[in-house]
């Protein structure tokens, strides 16, 4: 019988792949010139990039760091186009701190360095947990460092929380959970309303520990943007979570209040809310109250951010399978425990991208305060142009401000990607 089958006993030598598909050449063929249309697109893009670089590079690399006025800068350039970076060298401290007294610059710098320490345990799990105590103290430390004044104001304000907390702890075994919470909150409010003021003034007359106070009018530049942004971001998440829970609730009145608030805030532009802050908020307060414009802006930006945050968190809550709620009920957890232990950790994880993009949006939106006359970087750029020496300078200032905003926002979005990857538990 003739053997017709064939079994290879020796493997053929492997051949090298065609030269045109490997290495640099192959990569170019595959990624840049895979079809006539792609080739055209590639050439067009290359041309565009070349044109952009040819026009912007000579402008960016211009030897005008030392110029102290636009005229001097033009003399250095001798008629050729180029940027006048002297304005950044001369005014960058102003762009950072506005009109904050220059001998007190260490205070905002310290405040923002401490901010990094305070947020570190929240952002990265590797940091020791004990740092969280500092994170809790920081909200009272920051206003004191920025605005100055006696230290007792923030201390007494913080004491209100401590009183509420310990009253709750003390009463819980005696009177039960709900009564303990109510009494704690009530005691704290009573403390703030009636006792905090006298205590603070008594303490400061005994022990006058005070920093030189700085008025809000002196705030400006990126310091102002970061202050507004950080406070609004930090407050909007808890308020947003409460609003989202309110919107999900099956209590009709609570739900309608939450829905009304969220839809109203989301339906109007931030600039109208800032108009409210600049013109109306004082009218809403008891006659004679005149509180700080920066504080008023922070309040309105926080409300604005909270409404958006609530919608993001609601998306996370809605994406959670119903079984999770039912399982929490089956375990006998009450509403708060179920939310704290089961629902929120998962819902917040789902909504991380939305939360971070809301943060970025809030930070970007702080530029709007320049419209109501606060001196954020954009407002300062107009102030700098009003100076005789720099009258008519545009691109350098805008470019610098845009670059700084880009750095802040881009790093935030990268952090969100890192967080998403880290919390990815593989249920896909």
């Amino acid at each position, binding site marked *: 019988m003739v053997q017709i089958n064939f079994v290879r006993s020796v493997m053929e030598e492997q051949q090298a792949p065609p030269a045109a598909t490997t290495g640099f050449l192959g990569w170019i063929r595959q990624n840049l010139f895979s079809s006539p249309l792609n080739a055209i697109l590639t050439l067009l893009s290359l041309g565009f990039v070349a044109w952009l670089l040819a026009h912007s590079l000579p402008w960016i690399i211009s030897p005008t760091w030392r110029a102290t006025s636009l005229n001097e800068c033009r003399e250095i350039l001798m008629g050729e186009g180029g940027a006048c970076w002297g304005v950044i060298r001369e005014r960058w401290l102003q762009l950072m701190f506005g009109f904050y007294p220059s001998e007190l610059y260490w205070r905002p710098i310290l405040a923002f360095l401490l901010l990094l320490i305070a947020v570190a345990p929240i952002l990265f799990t590797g940091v020791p947990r004990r740092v969280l105590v500092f994170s809790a103290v920081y909200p009272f430390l920051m206003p004191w460092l920025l605005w100055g004044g006696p230290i007792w104001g923030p201390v007494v304000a913080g004491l209100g929380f401590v009183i509420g907390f310990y009253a709750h702890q003390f009463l819980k075994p005696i009177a039960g959970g709900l009564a303990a919470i109510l009494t704690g909150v009530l005691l704290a409010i009573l403390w703030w309303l009636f006792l905090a003021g006298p205590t603070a003034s008594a303490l400061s007359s005994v022990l006058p520990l005070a920093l030189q106070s700085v008025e809000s009018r002196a705030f400006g530049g990126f310091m102002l943007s970061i202050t507004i942004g950080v406070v609004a971001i930090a407050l909007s998440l808890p308020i947003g979570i409460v609003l989202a829970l309110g919107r999900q609730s099956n209590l009709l009145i*609570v739900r309608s209040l939450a829905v009304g608030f969220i839809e109203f805030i*989301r339906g109007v532009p931030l*600039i109208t809310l800032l108009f409210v802050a600049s013109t109306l908020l*004082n009218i809403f307060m008891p006659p004679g109250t005149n509180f700080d414009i920066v504080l008023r802006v922070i309040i309105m930006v926080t409300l604005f951010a909270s409404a958006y945050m609530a919608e993001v968190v609601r998306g996370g809550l809605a994406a959670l399978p119903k079984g999770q709620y039912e399982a929490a009920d089956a375990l006998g957890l009450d509403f708060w425990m179920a939310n704290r232990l089961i629902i929120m950790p998962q819902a917040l994880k789902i909504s991380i991208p939305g939360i971070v993009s809301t943060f970025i949006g809030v930070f970007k939106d702080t530029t709007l305060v320049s419209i109501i006359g606060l001196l954020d970087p954009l407002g300062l750029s107009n102030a700098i142009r009003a100076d005789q020496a720099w009258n008519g300078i545009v691109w350098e200032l805008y470019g610098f401000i*845009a670059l700084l905003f880009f750095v802040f926002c881009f790093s935030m979005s990268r952090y969100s990607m890192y967080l998403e990857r880290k919390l990815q538990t593989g249920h896909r």
Partner: protein
Amino acid sequence: MASLTDPPKESFRLGMLIYDTRYRSLTIQIVALFVFMIFAAWLINNTLANLAEQGKTIGFGFLSDPAGYDINQRLLDYSSQSTHWRAAFIGLLNTLLVAFMGCITATIIGVIVGVLRLSNNWIVARLMTVYVEAFRNVPVLLWIVFTMAIMIETLPAPRAFKGENPTANMVLFDSVAFTNRGVYIPEPLFSRGLGDLPVLPDRDSPACAAPEAGAPLNDSCGVFQISLDLILIVAVLAAGLYGSSRIKKRADRIQNATGDRPTTWYLRLGVVLVPLAIVLAILGFHLGYPQLKGFNFSGGTYLRNSLIALWLALSLYTAAFIAEIVRAGILAISSGQTEAAAALGLRSNRIMSLVILPQALRVIIPPLISNYLNLTKNSSLAIAVGYMDITGTLGGITMNQTGRELECVLLLMLVYLAISLSISGIMNWYNDRVKLVER
């Protein structure tokens, strides 16, 4: 003897309001309502007290007073003698104009960029990533003032077009002029026009006296005037589109019955374009070109640089967000769908229109709605470049002139709220239509 399984009937105690889940929800709601009402009453009380202290009253009568300021970019007739109402209305139209134009261009740019970001061409994909990241991470207000600065600083002044050897030239066969004051484009004119229809005419005003035979109606008659030419053209266009959709339905029916789809594109195009061309010819349609007269242009439609800057900046900024949405929408459709459609023998354009797009749209539309809303709300930043939208008129000059902050801001918020709710209403209706029905 009471059975053991039957707990003793409790009488109502006060503690049950807190500890019994049947009553607790009621208690919480009533407490919440009370707290809210006390808070609202406190606010209103404060407001009234403050207003009384400043000697102000609340009322909207001031809106009928003459505004006394000019609006330079407007769609309707307006003079400084017009009322604040009219100024606010002109501002509202300007807001809607820039929002409408912005939504359209942002969608077009966003879709193109989103698709190109997925291109397998390395450099194109990278360029689009740079574009998206650059626009998403820099405040929109900065982009608006930046675009405005580009318009003012880099474009030639109108007088550069003058003289024997002008330093600047008009483009597109001398029909469009880019100047640092704005862009002049040709305007549509009708030599045998039908005139205007006054809406809500005021019979008593002299402006509405019957015009002489053949003379056009006075511009200031009525609240505003609608061009009859425009109505006719829109009507013909709508009829054409309806006819086209009927032809498509018929083709669908034939395809369902026989499997063959008749070629209909020339019929569908013709039924829209031919009547339109006939109507335009009857009306004597021609273009009025902008002409340089003295130091400025006259004739043509004048788009102020503030409008152009706002429009461009908002479009490019929102397009970066839309690009991400489109990219996510396309990535959400698994490649198995494309392969399955190809296995059924569909051609690539029909795979796109029948299989990929309907599914991708379901993912794309909800976030797209919120981006349209964002664009509309961001258009309020017009105040930074001096474009007179409703924030610039009602919330800007009117508020500063009359000192009626409460009324103006309230009205402004209500207007934006109404716009937002109608946009989301319309888009949600559309979303319900394209949504795939699940299970």
